[in-house]
Structures are given as C-alpha cells and as structure tokens.
C-alpha cells in the first residue's frame, strides 16, 4: 500500500495545473464491519475525464458513490476522511445530500430509465429541481441533443422510456443527468451492459460532454479508459491477515503514463493483462 505517495496529477510536472473540483482526502469506506476502501487521496480536476480502473472489489464504484453521497442509501455505510466539492466538505453537518446530488449527477451501470415517457424521464429531474414548466420543452430538447439521442426519439417523446433499446436507454439516462445542469457527471461502468456500437456512441458522447462537465467514469474495460480518459486511477484489492479484503488506490496519473509507463509494479501487471 502506498498512501504516502500522494497521488495528485497536479503534482506531476507533465500535467497542466488545473483547479480540482472534487477532492478525496484519506477516504475510507466501511459497510458494517467490511472495509471496502482504505485511505484514498486524489483530486478530480475540472473539465477532465477521469477513469477509475481495477479488478472487481477494489472499491472504485464505492469511491464514485462517495462523491454524490449515494452510499447514504446503503444502511451501515460509514465514510471516513474528507470529500470536498469546490472546497466544501460534502459530508459536513449542514450539507444537504439532495443539493450535492443536484450538482454531481450519476449515470448507472444498468440503464435505468423511469417507467415514464421519454419526455417525463427528463422533465422529472428538471421539475423537482425548480425549472419552470415553460422551459421544459427546451430543456428536454437540449438534453436529448447533448446526449446525441434527439434525432432518434424526437417523434416519439410520449412513448415509454423502457421502449428504447439498451444503448438508447443509457443515453436517455445521460440526458436525464445533464438536464439538471450538474458540474460533475459520475458514470459507474456506463457501457458495460451495452453492445460495441452503443458503447462507441456513449464514448463519443463522453468526449463531447467534457466541454461542459467534469466526468468521472468507472470502467472494467481498459481500452475504454485509454479512449476516453485524460487521467486514470488504478485501484487494487488486497487481503490483509485474516483474509479480509480492502480496496486502495495504487496509482493515479495521466492515462498515457498509466498505460505506457506505470510507476507501480501492480499497475504494470494489470494494464498488461497479467491479472484482474
């Protein structure tokens, strides 16, 4: 474990210095007596795509769920350390998790549109976040265009979101997320349930969304990380004495460096396909 080699891309000379929009400081997560993640420190710079890679059970999804307090939904979860969004501790006493999630959106592994019409899938989030009804048509169109779905669904906005194909559903979920204009979009393996063509569309979309949003993406697909991410963080799971496993951050750097010139032996083995 190497929590002493603090992994901030800003500290490496090869990186352009950029403002960190999200920052994890010595974050540990436990579910009941099980420690899922130990001592993670990293910065997410603004308007960059950051990929989290690593074998199953290494805590990358757990970490991403800390960033918008989605772990709150799982009883028995404890988050140690500090997570800050634009300098504010999002686990602070006065912080409303609903407001956090409004600024930091999430796209899930399995496409999960609401059982409502395509239009209402997007309008739901906008309405509860106080957007006016008169703006709604515009918001729906803008979001669907951003998610590269508008052309495919513009004539059937009244149909159920569940009538779309898996890839379209996932883009609908992305549209729903960007409709409320968050700063950060978290994506938990957004393409793992999709076919290669849909996957490519989602990846192209991520590149476009980068202009306006900061994106953190968890992926099992290393090629995907090289294709979409500016920065990559490699996590690993280790068993301590007694057989309890916990996840930790091994290395965090520019994607190119992680894949071509990793500093850690574990990273080199993982990206060359020798384990995981």
């Amino acid at each position, binding site marked *: 474990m190497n929590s002493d080699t603090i992994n901030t891309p800003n500290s490496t000379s090869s990186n352009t210095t950029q403002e960190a929009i999200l920052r994890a400081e010595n974050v540990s997560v436990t579910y009941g007596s099980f420690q899922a993640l130990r001592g993670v420190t990293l910065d997410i710079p603004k308007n960059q795509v950051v990929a989290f890679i690593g074998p199953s059970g290494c805590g990358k999804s757990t970490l991403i769920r800390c960033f*918008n307090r*989605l772990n709150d*939904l799982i*009883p028995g979860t404890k988050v140690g350390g500090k997570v800050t969004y634009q300098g504010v501790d999002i686990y602070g006493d006065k912080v409303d998790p*609903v*407001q956090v*999630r*409004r600024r930091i*959106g*999430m796209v*899930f592994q*399995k496409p*999960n*549109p*609401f*059982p*409502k019409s395509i239009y209402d899938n997007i309008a*739901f*989030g906008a309405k*509860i*976040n106080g957007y006016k009804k008169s703006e709604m048509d515009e918001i729906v169109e803008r979001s669907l265009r951003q998610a590269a779905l508008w052309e495919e669904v513009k004539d059937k906005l009244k149909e*159920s979101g*569940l009538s779309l194909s898996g890839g379209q559903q996932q883009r609908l*979920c992305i549209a*729903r*997320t960007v*409709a*409320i204009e968050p700063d950060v979009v978290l994506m938990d393996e957004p393409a793992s349930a999709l076919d290669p063509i849909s996957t490519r569309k989602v990846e192209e979309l991520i590149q476009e969304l980068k202009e306006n949003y900061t994106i953190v993406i968890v992926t099992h697909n290393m090629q995907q990380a090289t294709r979409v991410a500016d920065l990559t963080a490699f996590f690993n799971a280790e068993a301590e004495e007694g057989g309890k496993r916990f996840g930790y951050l091994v290395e965090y750097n520019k994607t190119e460096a992680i894949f071509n010139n990793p500093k850690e032996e574990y990273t080199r083995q993982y990206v060359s396909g020798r384990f995981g």
Partner: protein
Amino acid sequence: MATTEDTIGRTKKINLTRSARTPFRSYFDFFMTFLTGAFTILTIVPLVALVWDVVRQGIDRLGIQSFTELPPPPGLEEGGFGNAILGTLITLGIAAAISVPFGVLAAIYLSEFGRGTRIAYGVKFATNVLAGIPAILAGLFAYTVVVLTTGGFSAFAGGVALSVVMIPIVVRATEEGLLLVPQEMRQAAVGVGATNFQSISRIVVPAALPSIATAVTLALARAGGEAAPLLFTALNNNFWSTDIWQPIATLPVLIYFYAIIPYEAQKEIAWAAALVLLGIILIVSISSRLLARQRL
C-alpha cells in the same frame, strides 16, 4: 458406435440409447402420471360445481327487478334485492376508504423506510396474524369499537369490520409490489436530486401502481363475500338506505337470512343474490388480474 477419450487417454464408448423399460416401470409411470393429472382436475371441480349450481338456481329469478326493487314481505312473490346490492357497494366503499390509505401507507413504511428494522418485523408479523384471524372476530372488534360507542348498528360499523379483513391483504400485496420496484429506480431518482418524498411519491409508488390496484381489488373481492363481520355490525335493513349511520342490507347477509327461512320466494331471491354476488366478485377479480398485467 462413437467413442471419446477421457482425461487419461482411455477410449470410452458413447452410449445414448435408452435402457430397457421393465413392464413394472411402464405401469408405474402411467399410474403416477394419471394420478397427478386426475388430482389436478379434481381441484377445479368445486369451483365449477359451485358456479354451475349458483347459475342454475339463480338465473330464473334474476331480472331487472332484482336490481331495482325491495325484497318482498313473507308470503309475497314479487321483488328484488336492490337495497342489498347498494348496501354491499356502500359498506365496501367505506371499508376501502379506511383500509386503502392505512394499508398502502403501512406498506410504504415497511418497504421504503422500515426495511430490516424491528418495527417492520413486528408489523409484518402482526399483519400476518391479522390475515389469519377469523372474519367473525373482525365483526366482534367493530361491534365493540363502533356499535357500542355510537349506540347502534350501522353501515359504517360494517365498513370498519370489512376494513379489518382488507388491511392485511392490502399491506402484504402492496409491500410485495413496492419491493418489486428495482432498487436502481430509487437510486436514479435520488441521483437526479430527488428528496426521499419525491422519489417515493413520483417514481416508486407510480411504478408499483398496478400491484397496488391488484392488492385493493383482491381485498375488495375477499371482503365483498363476507357475511360474518356484517351480522352484528351492519345488521340488515328491509328498505333502501344510504345513511351510513343506519343499519344497511348487504348481499351476504341477505343470502344468509333468506336461505334459512321457509318461504320459497325468499330462497329463490337468495340464489339470485348469490349469483349477483358471484358476478361482482368475478368482475372485481378479473379486473384485478388485468390491472396487474398492465405495465408502461
């Protein structure tokens, strides 16, 4: 015959031919298949026989006057049981107005807020016990709580008694429906900045609406056929009544009274009333199945 090699290189024959059947095995096979088939058919015999009997005996007396007229005094032939149909609808309406909000809200607590807590465990246990309590005790409960305190038999007391029968059915079926809503749906709602209340009221409950509708209709079908809880709550009434604070006639109670008095006309009316009751319950049950099938 084809051959294959096992892991240590020995050649093995592949034999997929069925082994020879002894006569005993053949007979035993036939006998057991026959037995299971026969008992399967036997299970639907009571339903078919019951429906057949009720239709056969009730259809002659059924007519427009059944729905529009009052029962005849003893000795006379003409008349219907319109007041009892209306009374059944009124008592069921009262029962639904009580049990649906109670049951649905309780189910929402059990599935959304109290999942895994001791309170939820206790409440679930209690509803299971309540579901197993004889219906006549539900009537006794309403008798002590409503009849004795309001000073008389009434449609309202009947509704309370039926709601006790309905609540456990509504709670259990609604909870099951809510648990079927995928966890991803709740996460998605919360992920776009919904509060707990918004997530439940706008996403989870609407997604479970078909199940909730099924729960309610199932409970109505069950309560609609109960006579025991109404005997000493709603009692009976030989006239039209829409006053919920007065005794009221209902189909099951009318059937109960008319089936045991020695006038032929009344017995015929009881059969016709049974047919109408069966019709109401069938319509409600079938519509509940249809509602359950609807998904967006």
